[in-house]
C-alpha cells in the first residue's frame, strides 16, 4: 500500500549486470518505498530473475554498472549474508534441498543470526520449536516438516511454503519473491499468498517477480513493472497486469519502440 510518510527502502539506478560475460540487465531504474508492493512481470529471459538474484548478491552475476542503495547504503558493499541481516530477503524460485540438515536446525540458525544482528535474544531449540510452530500455522504447514531435511523431498508447494515461513521468521524489510507462484496448485497459492499478505506491513516492502497475472489476484500490487531485454519498459498500476493477461507482452514492446522513435 502507498503511504504518505513512507521512506525509501530500495533505490536502483541504471543497474547493469552480466553472467559469463553476457549482459542480462541493461539499465534498471526502480524505487521501492516502505509499505509498497511491486510486481515485476515479463516473459522468460527478460531478466527479472537475474534482477532478483543480483539484489540478493549471487556471485555468478557481475554488476557492471549503475547503483543500488538499500536504506541509503550502497547495497554492493554488503556480502549476501550482510544483506540478509540488513533486511533483504529472497524467496527462491527453486529452493535448495539440503539432506542431512534438519529443517528446524536450519530455520533456527537463520532466525538466531538475524536476532543477534538486531540485538535481540536468540532462542534455544525448545523455545524456537514453540515459536516456529506458531508461524507454521500461518502457512498451514505440518510440524513434521521441521524434522525433515531442509526442503528434502518437499513438493513444489511445500518448498514455497517453507520459503515464506523463512520470511515470516526473518521479518525482512524488503522481500523479493521470485516466481513464488510457479508450481503451486490453487489451494497452495491461496495459502502462500495469504501468508504473504499477513506479513506485509507499512514498514516493509515486497517485490513480486512473476510471469503470470494469477498471483496478483491474491496479492494486490501498488505498481506493476514490465521487464523486457533487461530493462523496465513500462510501469503502471495493478490494471496493467490485467492488460498483460488479456493482451500478452508483445504490445508493450511495440509501444515502447514506437515511443523511442517518436
Amino acid at each position, binding site marked *: 500500500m502507498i503511504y504518505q510518510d513512507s521512506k525509501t527502502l530500495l533505490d536502483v539506478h541504471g543497474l547493469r549486470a552480466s553472467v559469463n560475460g553476457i549482459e542480462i540487465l541493461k539499465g534498471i531504474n526502480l524505487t521501492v518505498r516502505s509499505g509498497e508492493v511491486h510486481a515485476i512481470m515479463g516473459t522468460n529471459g527478460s531478466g527479472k530473475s537475474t534482477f532478483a538474484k543480483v539484489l540478493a*548478491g549471487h*556471485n555468478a552475476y557481475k554488476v557492471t554498472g549503475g547503483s543500488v542503495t538499500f536504506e541509503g547504503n550502497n547495497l554492493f558493499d554488503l556480502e549476501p549474508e550482510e544483506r*540478509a541481516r540488513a533486511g533483504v530477503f529472497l524467496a527462491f524460485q527453486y529452493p535448495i534441498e539440503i539432506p*542431512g540438515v534438519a529443517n528446524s536446525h536450519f530455520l533456527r*540458525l537463520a532466525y538466531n*543470526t538475524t536476532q543477534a*544482528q538486531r540485538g535481540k535474544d536468540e532462542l534455544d531449540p525448545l523455545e524456537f520449536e514453540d515459536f516456529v510452530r506458531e508461524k507454521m500455522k500461518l502457512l498451514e504447514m505440518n510440524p513434521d516438516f521441521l524434522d525433515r531435511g531442509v526442503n528434502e523431498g518437499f513438493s513444489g508447494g511445500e518448498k514455497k511454503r517453507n520459503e515464506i515461513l523463512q520470511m515470516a521468521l526473518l521479518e525482512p524489510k524488503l522481500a523479493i519473491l521470485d516466481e513464488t507462484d510457479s508450481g503451486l496448485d490453487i489451494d497452495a497459492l491461496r495459502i502462500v499468498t495469504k501468508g504473504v499478505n499477513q506479513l506485509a506491513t507499512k514498514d516493509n516492502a515486497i517485490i513480486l517477480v512473476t510471469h503470470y497475472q494469477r498471483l496478483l489476484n491474491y496479492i494486490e500490487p501498488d505498481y506493476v513493472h514490465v521487464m523486457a531485454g533487461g530493462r523496465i519498459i513500462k510501469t503502471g498500476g495493478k490494471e496493467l497486469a490485467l492488460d498483460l493477461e488479456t493482451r500478452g507482452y508483445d504490445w508493450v514492446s511495440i509501444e515502447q519502440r514506437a515511443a523511442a522513435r517518436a
Partner: protein
Amino acid sequence: MSVSMVTGGSYLESLLQGQPQLPSSPSAWLNQLRADAVDRVGALKVPTTRDEEWRFTDISPLAKLSFQPVRAVSSLQTADVERFYLEEAATRLVFVDGAYAPQLSTQPDEATDSGLIVSNLSTALSAHATAIEPHLGRHAGFRDNVFAALNTAFLQDGALIIAPRNAVAEKPVHLLFVATQREAASHPRCLLIAESGSAITVVEDYVALQEDAYVTNAVTEIALADNAQVNHIRVQRDSTEAFHIANCAVSTGRASRYRSVSVALGARISRYNLNTLLAAEEAECAIDGLALITGRQLADTHTCIDHAKPHGISRQSHKCIVDGAAHAVFNGKILVRPNAQRTDSSQSSRNLLLNAKARVDTKPQLEIFADDVKCAHGATVGQLDNDEVFYLKSRGLSEITARNLLTYAFGAEIIDRISVASLKHRLEQAVLEQTQRN
C-alpha cells in the same frame, strides 16, 4: 604412485609367526575348511598396485610391520571400554585384539529375545555346528582373496548370530572389536544367519584404545533366508596408524531385505569389500557408505551388487569427504545377470574434496546382461555447490557457517540412515569435529 614390490612369502610368514597354533576341531568339515584356506594362503600373494582390484591402494606399508603374538587373556575392564557401549544394545560381544572378552560381554536373555542366538564363534562351533556348517566359509570365498584365506586359515573366534524363524529382534546386537596392542594381527570372523521372516539389527564396530599400528583382517558372512530383514551397521574407527582389511559377503533369500550403512573414519589404510548377492527373486538391498578421512589416510571401498535373479532392487549411495592429503577409493560394481529381468538398480558416488592435496578415485562399474532393467548411476567429485552456499548466505549465515553446515550435511545424510540413535549421534559428532573450520 610407487608400485609395491611385496611378495607373498615374507609378509605372510611374519603374519603366521604372530598366530597361536590352532587346535584341530572335532568337526571334520571345519578342519577341511581351514586346511583349504591354508593351501590358498600358500598359493596366493599379497596384492600389489599392479593388480587391477588394488591399483589405487598400496598396502606395501603393511609388510613393514613385525607382528607380535596376541595376548590370549585381556585384562580390560568395563571402565576401559564402556564409552563405546550403545545404550540401545541389550546384547554385546566384545573382542579384544580378536580374542573374546566374556567379562565385557552380555549375552541375550532367552526369555525376552525370542530365541535369538548371539555367541562367540569358538564356543558356538560345537553347540551350533549344524547351523553353521552350511554357511561358514560358503559366502566369503577365499580362492582368490588372500585376506579372506588368511582369516579362514586362522579362524578362531568371532561372533555367531542366529535370528530364528520369524523372530523380530527389537534391540540391536553390538559387536565391539577393541584394538589395544601394538603390532597385533587379529582375524575376527562373524557369521549372521537370519532365518526366514526374521528381522535383526547388528552393529559391527571397530575401535582402538590408542594410536597404534596393528592389523585387523575381518571377514563377515551374512545369510538372509526368505523374507528376512537384516540391518547391518558397520563402523570402522580404528587407530589412524592401523591397517584395516575387511571382507563382507551377503547372500539374500527371496523377498529378503539387506540394509547396510558402513562408515570409515579410522585406519591409516583401510579396504572394505562388500559383496551382496541377490540370490533369489524380489530381494532388495540398500548399501550406503561414508568415508571421512584426513591426513595421510587411505580408505578404499569395493562393493559388488550381484543381481542374479529377477525383480531385485538395489539402492546404493557412497560418499567420501576427503581432507588433508588423504585418498579415498570407491569401486562400485553392479552386475545384472542375464535372467535378472526387471532389476531396478541405482547407484550414486558423491565425493567432497576439502583440500587441494586430497584425492579420490571413483569407479562405478555396471555390467548388465539382461535387457529389461532399470539401472541409474552417477558420480561427482568436487567442492561444495555454489548455489547451496548462496542459499544459506541469503539467510544470513556467514560463508564459513554455510560451508561448515553443508559439509556436515554431506556426511550426515549417510549417518542419518543409522537406526541406532546413540550411535548416530556419536557419529554426527565425529563428522562435526572433522568438518568444521573456524
